[in-house]
Each structure stands twice: as structure tokens, then as C-alpha cells.
């Protein structure tokens, strides 16, 4: 998400607005003022939009309350002894329908409104608000029935906090974002109204100026207000975190178990089988060494070749478990070594002053390995650039190729696998791969670096 210019509130003005080249003749203070003005007017516009949203939410609530009120009233009037039985039943069911169908529907709309507010507040007020909702029960393959949906919606605390927000926002909250626009309007009235006193005119103009000046802070305040109700509560945050940890732990254990099974199979079919064969060959050689030394010698050579093959297989296996360079030198050099072994031009730039912990190094290495395999299989790229750095407590690895793009994590199980593996370390992966390329993959894993071991030799 691009950082909008309005987030630079302390700067007060926008230093690189697109219109600057249009007014090259004006003196610098004037252009600066114009830029400042443009930034503030943007806040005014956004404030108006927030006001609109608040009104929409309030209107939704009031409409629901009105429908509810009317239907209850009608139902009550059905108790009139003169009205007939069927009418009563019809009216009573009307109330029921309004309660049952319209209620959840209103809550769902409210949720949409809250989501929109969260996004806009993040963009315009520079207050990031995470989604607080519980994941839907069908996210891990459950059924999608109406009852489950209802239960999901109604038991989520966040739903009711949304309702609280829409109420507060509709009644009072909107004042904050609307204030700049309101004061500006007041200023206009002050300037253009006939027969007004000079003091009054100056006062209104001052108020308008204050409104413009204070717009960023008012918006920020509105952002905090929204945050207090729309952000996940500490409890919800922990619940989401526990859920995430449980999921990634299960996945990590599954992957680990599958990996161990694969290694066992490879050893069983490979090196173990070869050692058995070698033993038998050596035994045969021992039995005939006196009677037929020539044939025995041939068998011995055969056993030697088998040992070479077994070693080759073990090497390949070790490379798949934990590549030696990774253990020796760490992730940057291991990726460099990987690049040297890949038939493609790969430029590796790394800037690590220490080493991440071994499991993270391994995850990062195999993620890059998988990505490079993907690139050479699908992308038809001529060159790839790998960038490894550690900033702000994050190990960041960028892999960019000049292939034809169109990589989609939803289709490729490889990319999903990488995402899952990184998730065990709270790592994330972002892919940008427009058709026609280039493809840029960025991975981030939070970790600390430890200083390299100093050699004692």
C-alpha cells in the first residue's frame, strides 16, 4: 500500500507534489504555501468523506430501528381483539423476519462500513488498524451453513464493537473530521455575508485558518478514536495469535515429519542398500580370493565403486537436509553457492553483519532455493537478482527475475509451501508478478543476528 502524502503531517506541506513543475516562476514561499494549502484541502475533503460514512452508518442504524419499531407496533396492534387470527400470525411473523433476517444483514453491512473506515483511517490518518475478526469457521474446511455463519457473526466480540463504533461515530465522532470543513465554510460565510461586522468577519477567517492548520491533528485524533473501538482488543489479538501459532505449529510438525520420512526412505533405498551390496560383494571376493584372485580383484573394484556411489548419494541427501556451506558460512554465502550452481546469471548482493539462528537460516535458504527452482522452471528468465539484508529486526530477501512474470501463489504449490514454511517463523512473502514480468518476490522474517564466530586459528 503506497504511503499517502497526507501521512507526512509533521512536515506540514508536501515537498514533492506533482504540480510543482507547473508553477516554476512563483517564488519559493508561494509554492510552498500552495503545496501546504493543497495538503490541507485534501484533509478537508477526506474529513467530508468520513462525515459521509458516519452519516451512512447512523442512517443504517436508524432505518433498522424504524423498521423494527413499526413492525413491533403493527404486531402489538394485532392484539386488538377485533382483528382476526391469521392477521395476527402474519404480523407476528413479520416481526420475527425483521429481527432474524434484517438484524444480521445490518450487522454484515456494519462490518463492511467498519472495514472501509479501517482502510481509510490507515491511509488518511496514518493510524494503522488491524482486522479484529475471528476467521470464519469454513476457513479450515468446515461447512458453510447459515447457522454457522450466524454463530460466527454473533459470537464475535468485534461485531458488537463495530456497532458501538458506528453509533459513537454517527452521534459524535464525525465532529472531528468535519471540523476543518465546517470552519472553512464558516470563513466563507464570514467573508461573503453582507452586513457583517469587521470583528465577526476576522473571527470567522481566523477560525477557518485554525481549522486548516489543525486539520492533520484533528484527523489523527479521529484515527485514534477509531482505533480505540475498531482495533482488535488485547484479548482478540491474543486469540488470533494463538490460532496462528497453533496452525503454523501443526504445519511445521507435519513438514518435519514428512521430511524425516523422506530421509528414512532415501537412506533405506540408497546408501543402506548399497552398503548391503558392498558387504555381499566383499564376502564373495573373500571366498574366491585364493582360487581366483583375478575375479576377486574385479569384485573388490566393484565394491569400491559401490562405496563411491553410496557417498555420492549421501552427499546429495545431506545437501537436501542441511547444505554444508549453510552450516559453514551462513545463509548469504550458502545462497551465493547456490547461485553458482544454478545455470542462470544470478547476482547476489548481501549485507549481513552476523548470522540469524540456524532454523531461520535454513528456512530462508530453502525458500530461495525453491524460488530459484521456480524461476528456472517457469519464468524463462535470463537474469536474477538476489538481495539479502537485515534491517529493523527483519531479515529481508528479495528475489527478482526478468522472466515473463505471471507467477500466482494460488496456483503454484511451491509458492504456497514457501509461505507456510516462513509462517512458522512469523515470516511473510510478497509477490509482484505482472504478466510480461518482471517477477519480484520479497520475503521478510523477523529475527536477530548474532555476531559471527571468531576463528581460533
Amino acid at each position, binding site marked *: 500500500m503506497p504511503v499517502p502524502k497526507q501521512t507526512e503531517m509533521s512536515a506540514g506541506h508536501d515537498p514533492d507534489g506533482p504540480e510543482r513543475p507547473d508553477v516554476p516562476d512563483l517564488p519559493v514561499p508561494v509554492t510552498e504555501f500552495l503545496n501546504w494549502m493543497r495538503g490541507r484541502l485534501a484533509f478537508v475533503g477526506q474529513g467530508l468523506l468520513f462525515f459521509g460514512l458516519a452519516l451512512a452508518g447512523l442512517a443504517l442504524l436508524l432505518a433498522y430501528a424504524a423498521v423494527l419499531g413499526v413492525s413491533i407496533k403493527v404486531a402489538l396492534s394485532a392484539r386488538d381483539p377485533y382483528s382476526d387470527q391469521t392477521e395476527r400470525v402474519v404480523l407476528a411473523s413479520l416481526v420475527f423476519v425483521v429481527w432474524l433476517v434484517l438484524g444480521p444483514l445490518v450487522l454484515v453491512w456494519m462490518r463492511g462500513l467498519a472495514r472501509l473506515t479501517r482502510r481509510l483511517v490507515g491511509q488518511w490518518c496514518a493510524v494503522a488498524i488491524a482486522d479484529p475478526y475471528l476467521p470464519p469457521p469454513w476457513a479450515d474446511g468446515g461447512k458453510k451453513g447459515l447457522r454457522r455463519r450466524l454463530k460466527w457473526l454473533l459470537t464475535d466480540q468485534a461485531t458488537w464493537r463495530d456497532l458501538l463504533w458506528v453509533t459513537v461515530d454517527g452521534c459524535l465522532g464525525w465532529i472531528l473530521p468535519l471540523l476543518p470543513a465546517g470552519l472553512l465554510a464558516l470563513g466563507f460565510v464570514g467573508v461573503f455575508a453582507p452586513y457583517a461586522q469587521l470583528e465577526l468577519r476576522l473571527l470567522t477567517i481566523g477560525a477557518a485558518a485554525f481549522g486548516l492548520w489543525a486539520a492533520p491533528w484533528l484527523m489523527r485524533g479521529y484515527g485514534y478514536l477509531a482505533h480505540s473501538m475498531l482495533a482488535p482488543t488485547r484479548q482478540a489479538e491474543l486469540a488470533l495469535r494463538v490460532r496462528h501459532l497453533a496452525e503454523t505449529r501443526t504445519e511445521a510438525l507435519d513438514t518435519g515429519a514428512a521430511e524425516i520420512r523422506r530421509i528414512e526412505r532415501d537412506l533405506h533405498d540408497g546408501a543402506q542398500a548399497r552398503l548391503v551390496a558392498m558387504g555381499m560383494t566383499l564376502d564373495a571376493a573373500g571366498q574366491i580370493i585364493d582360487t581366483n584372485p583375478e575375479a576377486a580383484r574385479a569384485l573388490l573394484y566393484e565394491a569400491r565403486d559401490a562405496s563411491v556411489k553410496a*557417498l555420492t548419494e549421501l552427499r546429495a541427501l545431506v*545437501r537436501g537436509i542441511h547444505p554444508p*556451506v549453510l*552450516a*559453514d558460512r551462513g545463509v548469504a554465502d550458502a545462497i*551465493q553457492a547456490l547461485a*553458482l550452481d544454478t*545455470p542462470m546469471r544470478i547476482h547476489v548482493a548481501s549485507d549481513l553483519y552476523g548470522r540469524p539462528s540456524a532454523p531461520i537460516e535454513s528456512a530462508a535458504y530453502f525458500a530461495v532455493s525453491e524460488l530459484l527452482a521456480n524461476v528456472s522452471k517457469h519464468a524463462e528468465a535470463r537474469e536474477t537478482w538476489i538481495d539479502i539484508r537485515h534491517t529493523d529486526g527483519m531479515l529481508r530477501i528479495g528475489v527478482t527475475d526478468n522472466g515473463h512474470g505471471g507467477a500466482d501463489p494460488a496456483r503454484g504449490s511451491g509458492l504456497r509451501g514457501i509461505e507456510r514454511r516462513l509462517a512458522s517463523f512469523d515470516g511473510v512473502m510478497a509477490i509482484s508478478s505482472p504478466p510480461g514480468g518482471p517477477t519480484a518476490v520479497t520475503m521478510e522474517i523477523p529475527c536477530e543476528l548474532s555476531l559471527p564466530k571468531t576463528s*581460533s*586459528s
Partner: protein
Amino acid sequence: MRVVIAEDLFLLRDGLTRMLQAHGLEITAAVDNGADLLAAVAKDQPDVAIVDVRLPPTFTDEGIRAALAARHEAPGLPVLVLSQYVEQLYARELLASGGGGIGYLLKDRVFDSAQFVDAVRRVAAGGTAMDPEVIARLLARNTGNASVGALSPREREVLALMAEGRSNAAIAQRLVITERAVAKHTASIFLKLDLQPSDDDNRRVLAVLAYLEG
């Protein structure tokens, strides 16, 4: 010929010593760590040092670092590095540590004692001994290269053996062709790869390796 061995596994150190002695080489010291290697090199001034990559105390790339340090202290000291696995990254670093006298082989190569001793002698004489696996991976990396693609299969075989550091005579013997035929192939290879031909075996090897790593 005087040899220093640095290998931490007793069985392998002992086996290497015996094998080399059987082929008439003199083992001046057989040590089990990098620091002792440096001391032995300084004291005995051997013709060649044979070094295992994994040595105590870290059991990572201690041997490579010890080899590079030894070459730093005694420039041009021929070093043959043995390893359970080979990495182009390490091959590069060794080759970059100064001209000639570099060997980098898998431990499995010890099984063929004649070939192995030949490699030791070659390195001691200032030549090169690169493991076939390093070369195979270098060639695989150059599959997309048009110039390498233009080589005939026989020329590729010659290129691989040349890159391992073998002389024309050795290549001829290996491929069962005449030395003149090898010379013809190498001339053609150098022409196709646009490399400066050279009569010096070792310079030739380094040129080919530099080209493939390029």
C-alpha cells in the same frame, strides 16, 4: 617430495600417510587442526600441504581458512584441499588465493590411489587439480552459453579434463587418443571460447576455469 597432512579423523590421517608413503612421498607432519598446520608449514617448509576442510574447533570451513592462511604466510605454497563435498564457492576462493599449486578434491578420490597421488604431485609442481564434480557443475552452469554449446561432445570431454588440471598427455591417455589429437581439440576449444592459447599447462587451466566461472 615432502608432504604435510592436516586431517582430524585418525583413520583417514593414518590411511593417507601410509598410502602416500607407499608411493614414495615423505610425510613430514600429520596434524589434526589448523593451528598445528600453520606451525608445521612454517617449520618443515613442505612441497605440498594436504588439508581437510572440516577441522576442529568449529568443524565448518576451518580447513579452507587454514589453507588460505598458510598460503598467505608462505605465498605459492601448494595446497590440496580434501572435502566430503565440493563447493564452487570454495574452489573460487582457493583459486583466487594466488597462481598455481591448488587442488580441491572429494575425499572419495583417495580410493583411487594412483590417480590421487598423481593429483598430489601435480599440485606440488604448481599445477591444478579440480574435482570432476566441480567441473561438471561449472559446465552445467554454462549450458546456456552459446560458445560452450558450440563445442562438440569430444571437445567438451577434453574441456572438462583440461579444467580438472590434466596435461595433454594425461588427457590423451584417458580418452585413448593421441596427444596430437588432444592438441587439435584444445586449439579448437580456445578458438571457440575466444581464449588466448597458451603452452603453459597451468595458465591454460586457470584461463578455462576463469572463463567457466565468468
